[in-house]
């Protein structure tokens, strides 16, 4: 706030840097990596990029025949929002055997976007359950792969049986503007939640 427009040389002042984190969840092939990549300033980094033999029987390629590989570890992107503020987007590992990493992922996160593929809506149950259990604010983004929304958003809400207050938006993971709007919806919702949960103290 106090240093808007001031461009210091990178190494000069030991200024305080702040980072924030948003989690992007969803089933295998739901478009998490695409979503992260559409807004990230770096090519999404990942610890391991290839699907190994070990995941045979865990990953199901049937409904996404065009997808040959998947990330078996988490991938993430970076968005610099200000001189001293960096937002990181972390995609959840698709496989159940990496669930131990989810605790690391949600700790301190602003919230989560659950990307839903309406062809395989059941894949969204587990992330939804997890975030509800941890009390992490989340919204559902229905990824419209071919620009067409195949299902009514209310039907999706009913199928996922989630609360009316939780936003469900349609999004195109490939489109930067769409991803941006989805993230804005999430942060707005997370702030409403945060204030609502702390209403007695929020006045201060």
């Amino acid at each position, binding site marked *: 706030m106090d240093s808007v427009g001031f461009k210091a040389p990178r190494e000069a002042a*030991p200024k305080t840097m702040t980072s924030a984190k948003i989690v992007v969840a969803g089933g295998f092939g739901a478009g998490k990596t695409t979503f992260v990549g559409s807004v990230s300033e770096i090519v999404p980094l990942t610890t391991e990029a290839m699907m190994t033999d070990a995941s045979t029987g865990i990953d199901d390629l049937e409904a996404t025949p065009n997808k040959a590989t998947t990330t078996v570890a988490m991938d*993430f992107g970076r*968005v610099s929002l200000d001189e001293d503020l960096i*937002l990181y987007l972390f995609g959840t590992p698709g496989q159940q055997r990496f669930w131990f990493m989810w605790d*690391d992922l949600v700790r301190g996160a602003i919230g989560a976007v659950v990307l839903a593929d309406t062809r395989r809506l059941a894949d969204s149950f587990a992330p939804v359950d997890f975030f509800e259990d941890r009390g992490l604010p989340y919204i559902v983004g229905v990824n419209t792969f071919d620009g067409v929304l195949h299902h009514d958003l209310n039907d999706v809400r009913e199928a996922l049986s989630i609360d009316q207050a939780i936003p469900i938006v349609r999004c195109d993971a490939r489109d930067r503007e769409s991803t*941006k709007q989805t993230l804005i919806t999430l942060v707005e919702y997370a702030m409403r939640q945060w204030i609502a949960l702390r209403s007695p103290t929020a006045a201060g």
Partner: protein
Amino acid sequence: MSTGAGSSAEDDPGTFADVLNGFGLGSGRGRRKKVKRRDDPGDVNGREAPPALPPSEAEERGETRSGTGEEQFVSAEAIPFIPATAPNPAEETGFVRPYAITGGRTKANYPLELETLVSTREAAVMAVPDQIEHQLIMEECRTPRSVAEIAAALRVPLGVARVLISDAADTGLVTVHKTISGDEGAEAHLMLMERVLSGLRRL
């Protein structure tokens, strides 16, 4: 890794042949070669990768080593190393157990979240730390980098990166920036969300 093998070979008071092997191949691989030559008929598992050197040259090295026959027998005992390193030859760090870099330690002295930012301290820019990983961290963090980014850049598991960063911070090479988490300071978290929101709108 070849750099690491080279530097360790310099430190070790090994034989000249060992030094050569250290440069030419991974140290683990060198050990395997020895084992194979000793127990040639017994090696039926066919796990041996094709040696990087033509056989004739390998013979030469065998000649060189014949002066230190004693050591060869010691090496032959080291067969258990093979299964530990063999399963995934495609993995670049397959010859070193991940936590070997940290001396087996798994705990960090700082709360290092995935998104926690680390930057190289200005006072330490000229420092040349002994451990190659610390050098890499310092190079990487000239502009602030998250723990996750550092782990990806160093190609080490997250837990290993945490210990390495913790060490680098302990020795004053890098600064660990404070991470705002939801639990401590509700006010700070709300402010952070506000800043993220306006930042996203500006994008």
